[in-house]
């Protein structure tokens, strides 16, 4: 049989580790959305003193590489400190799986982002974000790289849909090059709000469509 993935990926796909949710998690994240295809939720329990991940679970609505990466990333992160876990890269996850097809980077990178976002969520909730950097256009742009353009399956920035970003007095204004009535306008707006609103110095997010 010639399957599209190697045996290790198939094994994690068939029997994903650490699947499910954690009730009352210390940190939690959801990356992606059904409109974009793939979606991953990550839940963590953290040992407070050691800042170590003592339990981690994930859920995936995605393709095989998304599920397999979610599985391996939870294995890699379990028992690690938050700082160690934050640094697990997509490449490490891919290597641990014996290699993923390049075209599947987008689907699998979501799990890595999910882990980092769950850790950030924990840190934000526990006031652990040490450097309170003022939000800049660059920071907003970086976060928008995690909002998918469902038409292309790639993020908004890479597909040139962001035509304007304004950051002023705790208000972020983002302009998207799509018509207001576009079928994905609402999805995209919600995702942008979710990604930007959690920034510590932002009180309001405005998303304009002017395609």
């Amino acid at each position, binding site marked *: *049989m010639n*399957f*599209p*993935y190697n045996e290790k990926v*198939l094994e994690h*796909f*068939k029997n*994903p580790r650490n*699947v*499910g*949710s954690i009730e009352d998690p210390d940190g939690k994240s*959801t990356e992606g959305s*059904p*409109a*974009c*295809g*793939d*979606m*991953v*939720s990550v839940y963590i329990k953290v040992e407070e003193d050691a800042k170590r991940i003592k339990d981690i679970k994930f*859920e*995936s*609505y*995605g*393709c*095989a590489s*998304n*599920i397999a990466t979610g599985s391996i990333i939870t294995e890699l992160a379990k028992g690690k400190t938050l700082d160690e876990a934050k640094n697990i890269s997509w490449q490490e996850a891919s290597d641990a799986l014996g290699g993923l097809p390049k*075209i*599947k980077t*987008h*689907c699998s990178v979501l799990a890595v982002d999910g882990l980092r976002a769950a850790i950030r969520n924990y840190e934000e909730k526990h006031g652990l974000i040490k450097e309170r950097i003022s939000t800049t256009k660059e920071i907003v742009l970086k976060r928008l790289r995690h909002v998918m353009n*469902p038409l*292309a*399956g790639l993020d908004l920035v890479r597909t040139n849909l962001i035509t304007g970003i304004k950051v002023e007095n705790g208000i972020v204004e983002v302009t998207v090059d799509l018509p207001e009535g576009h*079928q994905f306008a609402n999805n995209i707006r919600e995702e942008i709000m979710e990604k930007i609103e959690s920034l510590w110095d932002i009180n309001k997010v405005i998303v304009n469509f002017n395609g």
Partner: protein
Amino acid sequence: MEKETIYFDNAASTRMDERVLSAMKPYLFDVYAVATSEFGYSLGIEAREALDDARENILSALGNPAGKLIFTSGSTESSNIAIKGVVKKLSGKKGNHVIVSKIEDFPVLNSAKSLEREGFKVTYLDVDKYGLVDMDQFKDSISKETILVSIQHANQEIGTIQDIKTIGEICRKNNIVFHSDATHSFMRVPMDLSKLGVDLLTISAHTIHGPKGIGALFLREGVSIAKWIDGGFQEFDLRAGVENIPGAVGFAKAVELVTEEENERLGNLRDYLIEKVQNEIPYVTPNGHPEKRVPHNANITFHYVEGESITLHLDMKGFSVSTGSACFSKSLEASHVILGIGGDHERAHGSVRFTLGRFNKKEDVDGIVKALKEIVSQLRAISPLKGEKVR
């Protein structure tokens, strides 16, 4: 391959029938000459007669319409010849406007896009939630400039059959050439071209248990197209090159082997599959028209799960199907058909196409539904989307 594959992707291609191979064999090993004119040598005359017979038999299956049947390398080529050949012949003399539906298969869709790049105007007609072309929009989009309409007979993914009769009548009335891609309905749905206003029809052999690499384009009498391939005078001086006689003979044999009983059996099996899935698996939506559809196609969205995960699990259990999910395609684009019928990306991502053929049995359907039930419930268990409805 270690174990037998149970194949449910007969719209993509089919296993060739052994009887087709038997019919082809003499034209590979005994009558292998090129088709000569009636004044050539005997082996060549025999080859030409076989080619003519194959042509006649296929035309007869289409209701003996007045016109030519041009053998091609397959339906992709047929649709390319039809669209580009007509446009090349008429451009400069008539208008520059072409109408297609937005759920056409890629040969038609990308031929239209290629014309657009050359400066033609193309209208991509919307379809309703079942995949039927919006007839009001169709009528409204016709202008003096319109030279060609290309609307498929049946859809490649959801199996919906268009109202070709009415579309043909409208084209006739407006003196517009009408091409239809019938790759996914030929021989599966009765088609009498002597009564339909179709000027050009694309058909293929490998979707009906015939050989790959051979298809045909029907060209109605009085409709002309530009020469497609330069060279000799083969295929009515429209497509040069040594004729694929074993292929043509195999094609005709494949046509001969499809029976009404077979189509009825496939229709019943398809209904059985859809019903069984609906009875045994919650949160599913069948795609396509409930009645106006080819007998061998079922397309079902399994909500809250992604199609590539389903197809891979099925593959590991020995079943072959395809999906409209972006993750399954090389381009990472979701099915334009499911999006075209107003489905969102979630609906496309969870869509699975089952297409039946001669070698599928009832046990195969029982087997795949049993496998699906396990797979879908396993994937839903790990999906963050399950929400209140599935819990």
